[in-house]
């Protein structure tokens, strides 16, 4: 079964450092997303990406965050200057269409980001 692959599974970084989280979405999917989950809290939407541009972003997704699809297979989330409160599990997701009719949104297993 096709899956969304995220690397690394765990990253520890110092406050103020830049991090790049990487994702390989399902190959024929057209819509790409980043969500995050702070320990013990709900899964929160960060950004959606379609046709090489951001289609929607949340209030969390400020100027410190950026996304990129550098080639035909990768989708990345960059945090320019990490803060302690950025510590969370970050999930990449992809979908073929805009709703759930095509099997929903497929999530990766996540990258646990720890900012120290």
């Amino acid at each position, binding site marked *: 079964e096709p899956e*969304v692959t995220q690397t690394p599974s765990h990253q520890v970084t110092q406050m103020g450092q830049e991090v790049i989280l990487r994702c390989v979405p399902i190959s024929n999917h057209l*819509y790409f*997303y980043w*969500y995050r989950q702070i320990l013990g*809290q*709900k*899964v*929160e*939407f960060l*950004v*959606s990406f*379609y046709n090489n541009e*951001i*289609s*929607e*972003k*949340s209030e969390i997704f400020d100027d410190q965050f950026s996304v990129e699809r550098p080639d035909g297979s990768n989708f990345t989330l960059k945090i320019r200057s990490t803060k302690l409160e950025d510590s969370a599990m970050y*999930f990449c*997701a992809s*979908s073929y269409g*805009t*709703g*759930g*009719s095509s*099997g*929903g*949104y*497929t*999530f*990766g*297993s*996540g990258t*646990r980001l720890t900012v120290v």
Partner: protein
Amino acid sequence: EDQVTQSPEALRLQEGESSSLNCSYTVSGLRGLFWYRQDPGKGPEFLFTLYSAGEEKEKERLKATLTKKESFLHITAPKPEDSATYLCAVQTLTGGGNKLTFGTGTQLKVEL
């Protein structure tokens, strides 16, 4: 603002003891309601999408239903392997990015 509330927060069942999880929502216009299963340290795993009141979907021991205000996930004769956190999420007609708004989940534990 879209809101999704799940109850109970945690549920402990004996194997074979059927029960229901609730997801109530307040949105400006519902496009779809999603159920996901999440195992510890893993990403959400898609279960169902419901689109309109009265719709039902089933998969093995799980059955999801939808009304205009809430959705239920019925678990019939659960097994220990059904233990997980069950997440409800809504997608609304507003916004251009198809985002999902999640509830906090129900943590289900099924014991022998």
